[in-house]
């Protein structure tokens, strides 16, 4: 006997939701940690060996952009994901990332902008108040999660570098560190992992620079210390462990569309009507160990349910051609 998930249509569109009660996603210990952290300067970047216990962050709750679906557990989010730099299995990132050094960290910014250079993570993050956003996350492999990220709008960061009129796209690059990222010792992908957004996509208020998860700094396996989150796109667009941001005029290359241009496009917008050549994108499974075996698929929403906010970006574009 199969038990169907309750009406996925209800999830269509994003309504400014009520703030999810803290108790739903923070247990008592986390609250205590957050309280301790609240009294301190927000410290980002983890000292060596602090892999297991990510420090708490100071942040506000951003209800306007958050969905009111129940988030996945911290355990699920941190032990089931793709980060090929640490291996191709879903559990590999959590198992193989203990030796990853999140600190010191610098990001190089360049290209079509006025302010260029290499910045420490602390400098990059200093002016930005953090907020929590509970976003849907849809993997191109047709599974999905709901994740309470902590971060700040990408547009606020990009604006600081004063991009010029030639900045039509933003290109991102992941760190290459084979000694700490065992997956990079094999040429599974063409390292470094690269991704890009059109400038208007990057400047969209939904585009998030994430530094945390469940109120704590990101664990290494989830793309610490700095990652992109574009919730209306397939997960592979949300590039992790960023070390380079470049404003460019031409559409930059992106790792998965280089690997298989027929299967993965530059835009990679979640679209139930455009199938991956080898599988359907019409439905997805909301994963979670608590779901057990009776956790059937739910319909995938256009732009992952963020249609109201982002459809305007693609007006007049053939989404089948620009998939």
């Amino acid at each position: 006997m199969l038990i169907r998930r309750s009406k996925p249509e209800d999830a269509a569109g994003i309504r400014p939701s009520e703030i999810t009660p803290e108790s739903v996603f923070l247990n008592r210990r986390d609250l205590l940690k957050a309280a301790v952290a609240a009294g301190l300067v927000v410290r980002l970047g983890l000292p060596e060996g602090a892999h297991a216990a990510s420090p708490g962050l100071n942040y506000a709750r951003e209800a306007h952009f958050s969905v009111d679906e129940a988030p996945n557990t911290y355990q699920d989010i941190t032990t089931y994901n793709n980060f090929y730099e640490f291996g191709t299995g879903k559990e590999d990132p959590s198992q193989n990332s203990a030796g990853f050094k999140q600190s010191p960290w610098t990001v190089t910014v360049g290209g079509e902008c006025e302010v260029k250079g290499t910045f420490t993570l602390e400098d990059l993050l200093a002016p930005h108040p953090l907020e929590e956003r509970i976003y849907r996350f849809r993997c191109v492999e047709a599974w999905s999660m709901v994740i309470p990220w902590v971060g700040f709008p990408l547009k606020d960061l990009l604006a600081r570098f004063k991009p010029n009129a030639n900045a039509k796209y933003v290109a991102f690059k992941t760190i290459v560190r084979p000694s700490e990222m065992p997956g990079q010792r094999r040429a599974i992908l063409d390292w470094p992992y690269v991704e890009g957004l059109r400038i208007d996509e990057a400047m969209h208020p939904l585009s998030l620079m994430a530094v945390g998860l469940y109120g704590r700094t990101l664990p290494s396996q989830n793309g610490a210390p700095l990652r992109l989150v574009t919730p209306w796109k397939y997960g592979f667009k949300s590039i992790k462990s960023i070390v380079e941001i470049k404003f460019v005029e031409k559409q930059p290359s992106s790792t998965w569309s280089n690997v298989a241009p027929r299967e993965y496009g530059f835009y990679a917008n979640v679209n139930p009507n455009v199938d991956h050549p080898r599988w359907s994108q019409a439905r997805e499974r909301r994963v979670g160990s608590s779901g057990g075996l009776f956790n059937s698929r739910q319909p995938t929403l256009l732009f992952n349910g963020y249609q109201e906010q982002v459809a305007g970006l693609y007006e007049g574009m053939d989404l089948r051609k620009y998939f």
Partner: protein
Amino acid sequence: MHSTQIRRWVFKPILHVLCLLPLLHLIAGSSGFAGVSLGADPIAKVLHELGQWGLRFLVATLAITPLRLMLGKPWLVSFRRILGLYSFAYVLMHFIAWVSIDQGLYWQGILEDIGKRPFITIGFAALLLLIPLAITSTNRMMLRLGRHWKKLHRLIYIIAVLGVWHFYWLVKKDVTEPLIYVATVAFLLGYRYWRFRRHKIPAVPLVEQRGNRISDRLRTPA
């Protein structure tokens, strides 16, 4: 104890237990028994494990003939049917898991996938081809089909190719694991071809000699 009896009362039960272990692991994992966990996507785990074990038992079945010829242990053939039937059982459970817990009996999507997605088409074809082999696996059917039995069961070669292809095609990028299966199956089929060329006879005689039928060999020690 007679060696046939040892096989029947010791080796075969052990083989059954070994073949059931992967299933027991999945049952334990999905019920949370003894702290076994299937991770954040238990459905995908169940689906992939069942498929992989189906393929592993298929490879094991194919390995019996080369092994018995290389080692000169004809009695090994008595384990072949068990392995073949477990392969079928796991592949069938893999399919049932896909249709039920993965697709939620969403028939429109299921039929579309079988028709439209080549890797699913291939996997489904392999399952269909396994059915006649499973049905004709009994001693009675062996006797009834006689020399046709051998011909029919050569379908296993095609099924193995389809099964490995199915696995290869669904992997997103890192094809290391499917390539191991490709190499293994290529070796097992290549060995047969090599033997056939060398001796100008099939690895196993096409027509069973009178008194040397497979069913007889199953019962009498070599």
